[in-house]
């Protein structure tokens, strides 16, 4: 999902840079205020950990392999502000040293992967944790939150590419969303397994960090929420408002109906809901159904991974 240079134009780069700078600045201030000095080196080490963890390849069927992305995992372990700082650091180093993601696209990448992924993942994680208590609930929550955050970040990435005029929305959205709905399943599974592994080896570590890193007030999350909403409103909403209902009228009104037809066949035709021929609409419907399915899967996985007797509340 790392956008290289040349893929987004000036206005998108400028807008994403401003939003990301605000978000990272806010996260740094929060971290300075909330994190005890003891934990400051942990930010750098967590960033190095994330980079090293991304190099561990998990075999998927057919000789391919996937790896952890980890924004949500770090947010669940260290809190959202620390996660924003950690993932931003990883992205900066990847950009400058390993040329993974562009310099001008850094703002867009930071917004999608550091801010959106960590904050949305964290919010969903907390909400599900509130419903389902115990370690089983946490494992379910982290799997589901990772999936949602991955898919949303991909959709936002598609929105930025479409806004730049690099790839039309009718191609970018179905392609990115569908591919990342599958990638997200792996991400959720890996995140949950890693979280469980940390919990089994050092439950005190998770409890201790839960007390120091998590936001104490709602205000922090509200401000992140505003920032994320602003970004999503800019990148995705202009395209989303022409989803199936008003599509035809909007297309006719602006005279771009001929541009809106899908330019590529959907990457996974059997995943499309029959009866809806339009790839964007079908992807949206499939996404809504997919999130329900993934939630049920995450619930089942939590039950399967965590036997009943270890339901110690943390």
């Amino acid at each position: 999902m790392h956008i290289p240079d040349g893929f987004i134009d000036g206005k998108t780069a400028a807008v994403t840079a401003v939003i990301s700078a605000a978000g990272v600045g806010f996260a740094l201030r929060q971290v300075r205020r909330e994190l005890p000095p003891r934990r400051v080196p942990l930010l750098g080490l967590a960033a190095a950990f994330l980079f090293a963890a991304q190099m561990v390849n998990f075999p998927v069927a057919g000789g391919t392999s996937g790896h952890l992305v980890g924004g949500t995992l770090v947010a669940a372990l260290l809190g959202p502000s620390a996660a924003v700082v950690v993932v931003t650091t990883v992205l900066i180093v990847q950009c400058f040293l390993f040329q993974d993601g562009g310099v001008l696209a850094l703002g867009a990448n930071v917004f999608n992967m550091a801010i959106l992924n960590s904050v949305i993942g964290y919010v969903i994680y907390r909400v599900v944790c509130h419903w389902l208590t115990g370690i089983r609930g946490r494992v379910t929550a982290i799997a589901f939150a990772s999936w949602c955050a991955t898919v949303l970040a991909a959709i936002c990435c598609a929105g930025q590419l479409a806004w730049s005029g690099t790839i039309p929305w009718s191609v970018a959205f179905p392609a990115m969303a569908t591919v990342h709905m599958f990638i997200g399943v792996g991400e959720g599974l890996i995140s949950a397994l890693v979280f469980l592994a940390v919990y089994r080896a050092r439950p005190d570590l998770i409890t201790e960090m839960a007390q120091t890193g998590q936001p104490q007030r709602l205000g922090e999350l509200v401000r992140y929420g505003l920032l994320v909403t602003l970004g999503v409103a800019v990148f995705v909403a202009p395209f989303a408002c022409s989803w199936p209902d008003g599509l035809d009228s909007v297309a006719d009104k602006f005279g771009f109906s001929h541009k809106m037809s899908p330019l590529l066949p959907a990457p996974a035709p059997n995943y499309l809901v029959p009866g809806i021929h339009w790839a964007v609409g079908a992807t949206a419907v499939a996404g809504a159904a997919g999130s329900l399915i993934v939630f049920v899967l995450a619930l089942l996985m939590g039950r399967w991974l965590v036997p009943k007797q270890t339901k110690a509340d943390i």
Partner: protein
Amino acid sequence: MSASWLGHQHSQSDSPVHRLPAALKLGVALVIIVATVLAPIQWRAWFIGVALLLVLTAGLSRLPLFFLFRRLLVLSPFVLGVVLVNAFQPAGRDRWLAVAVKSVLCLLTVILVSNTTPFSQILRVLKSIRVPALLITTLALMHRYLFVLMDESERMRRARASRTFTRGRRFHWNTLATVVGQLFIRASERAERIYDAMCARGWK
């Protein structure tokens, strides 16, 4: 081993390009990237000029050519994907060319700068333009321990491979996740020791 695979050692060697001040290199690179991304594709002269400048710099920097080529070829699958999508569109030929040229030029610029400038100098430049100190500390610590943790991960992978004989898929994922989880635990324990060491040396 991992460090050499990433080709990171090149920033420590010596050449006229290596000796240029880091702020100058970063500034010029930023100007080149911004102008290249914003330039319309009709500005042929600009793209050719930048390409010539980059080739000249690459020659002066004495970086191994093979290394540069490999770095360029390992473009993320993303670039190739988008280029392919655009190539199949009837009207997208120009845009495809623009995207390809722009990303290759920007990529080459960043490769040259990052392989001729030590990371500590980049951090010093960032500090002088008032990037928050916490972010710089985090970047410095990450860069310092990146290769340590990658080697640690590699050692754990080897230890795991020499001890497990069955390789069921579910079991395998579980084992890999345990390795990653263990890596996090070791990283956080190391962070505690680093904090103690930093305090012992007078870090405020």
